[in-house]
C-alpha cells in the first residue's frame, strides 16, 4: 500500500480515465439527471456511496466465496445481485432513519442499480487487483480507493455538465438539436478537454 500508487489511482480515475468522458460508463444517468445542478449533486453523492460499498462487498464475495469455490465465472450474476440487494437495503434504511436524506436521494437510488458505472468499477477492480496469487487484503484496499475516486470523477463530470446544461436552456438551438443531441455535442467538447490530461505519465 504505497502512497504513490494511491495518488496515481486518484488522478487516473478522476481525470485521465474519467468514467463518463473517456470510458463511457454511466452515460444514461449522466444525460438523465444533468438538467439541474442540485439533482446532479444528489445523484453524484449517491453514486459515490453505492460504488464504494458495492466495491467492498463484491471484492469480499469474490475473494472469499467465488474463488475458493471455483465459480469465479459466475461473477456477473453474483455482482449484479449484490448491487441490487445493497441498493434496495440502503433505500429501506434511509427511508426509515433519515427522511430528509431520503427526500434528497430517494428517487435516484433505484436508478443506480442499472448504472453501468457501479458494476463496471466492480469488474474493473477484479480484473486489475485480484490476479491469482496477489495479496487479497491489498486488493480489497485498492478496490475501495479505485471505486471512491471513480465516483468522484463521475461527480465532477456530472456537475460540470449540469452547470452547462442549465445555461443551454436559454440558448436558441435548432429544434432537431434541442435537448439530448446538443447535450452530446457539449459532452464531446468536454471530453476533448479532458483528453488533455491523457499526456500524464504516472
Amino acid at each position, binding site marked *: 500500500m504505497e502512497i504513490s500508487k494511491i495518488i496515481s489511482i486518484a488522478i487516473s480515475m478522476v481525470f485521465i480515465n474519467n468514467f463518463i468522458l473517456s470510458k463511457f460508463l454511466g452515460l444514461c444517468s449522466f444525460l438523465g439527471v444533468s438538467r439541474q445542478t442540485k439533482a446532479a449533486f444528489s445523484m453524484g453523492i449517491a453514486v459515490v456511496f453505492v460504488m464504494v460499498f458495492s466495491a467492498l462487498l463484491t471484492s469480499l464475495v469474490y475473494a472469499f466465496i467465488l474463488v475458493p469455490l471455483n465459480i469465479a465465472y459466475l461473477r456477473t450474476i453474483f455482482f449484479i445481485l449484490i448491487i441490487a440487494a445493497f441498493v434496495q437495503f440502503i433505500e429501506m434504511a434511509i427511508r426509515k432513519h433519515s427522511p430528509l436524506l431520503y427526500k434528497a436521494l430517494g428517487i435516484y437510488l433505484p436508478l443506480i442499480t442499472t448504472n453501468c458505472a457501479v458494476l463496471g468499477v466492480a469488474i474493473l477492480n477484479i480484473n486489475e487487483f485480484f490476479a491469482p496469487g496477489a495479496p487479497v487484503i491489498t486488493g480489497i484496499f485498492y478496490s475501495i480507493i479505485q471505486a471512491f475516486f471513480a465516483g468522484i470523477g463521475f461527480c465532477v463530470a456530472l456537475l460540470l455538465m449540469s452547470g452547462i446544461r442549465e445555461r443551454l436552456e436559454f440558448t436558441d438551438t435548432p429544434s432537431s*438539436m434541442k435537448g439530448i443531441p446538443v447535450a452530446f455535442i457539449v459532452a464531446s467538447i468536454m471530453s476533448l478537454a479532458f483528453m488533455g490530461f491523457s499526456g500524464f505519465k504516472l
Partner: protein
Amino acid sequence: MKNLIKEFSKGITVLNPTFGLILGLCPTLAVSTSLFNALGMGVAATFVLVFSNLIISALRNFIPGRIRLPAYIVIIATFVTMCELAIKAYLPALGQSLGIFIPLIVVNCIIMARAEAFASRNPVLPSIFDGLGMGIGFTLGISIIAFIRELLGSGSIAGFGLLKSNEFILVMILAPGALLTMGLLIALSRLLGITKK
C-alpha cells in the same frame, strides 16, 4: 402475422433503441470504434434480448410482482454469462476488444426496458419478435456509428483499409468522436422524421 411484423419493425424505426429511445448508450459509444466490434456487440445483445424476452414472457404469470426486477436481472445475467463464456471460447480476439462491455450487457437499459415494458405483459411469440426487432435495431444503430467512426478515424471498413493516406481524423475513434457522432446522428434522425422526440 401482421401484428408480429409490427412488433418486429417498430424496434428498427420509430422506437429504435439507439436513436429513438436513446437507451443502452454505454456499449453503443464504447465499442463503436470498428465495425467488427460493433457487429459482435450487436449480435451478443440481440441473443440476450431474444432469450431473456422469451423466458420472462413465458414466466410472466409465475414471477411475483414485487420481486420481478431481481428475477429479471438473474434471467438476463444468466444469458449474459453464457454469451461471455461462448465469446471467450470461440472468438477470443473479439472478447479482448469488447472487454468489460460483455458483462456490462446485464445493465444495458434496453434489455431491462423491454423486459419490463413488453415481455412482462405479452405472450411468448410477440415478445420474441419484439426482442429480435429491438436487437436488430440496436445492431443497426451501433453499426452506423461504427461505420462513420472507423471510416473517418482509421480510414477502413471492418478492418479493410480503403485509403492510402496516413492522415485520418484520429479523434473520431477516441471518446470525443463517439459523442459528436452520436449527437449529430440523433439530430439527423429527428430532422428526417425517422424518430420522434
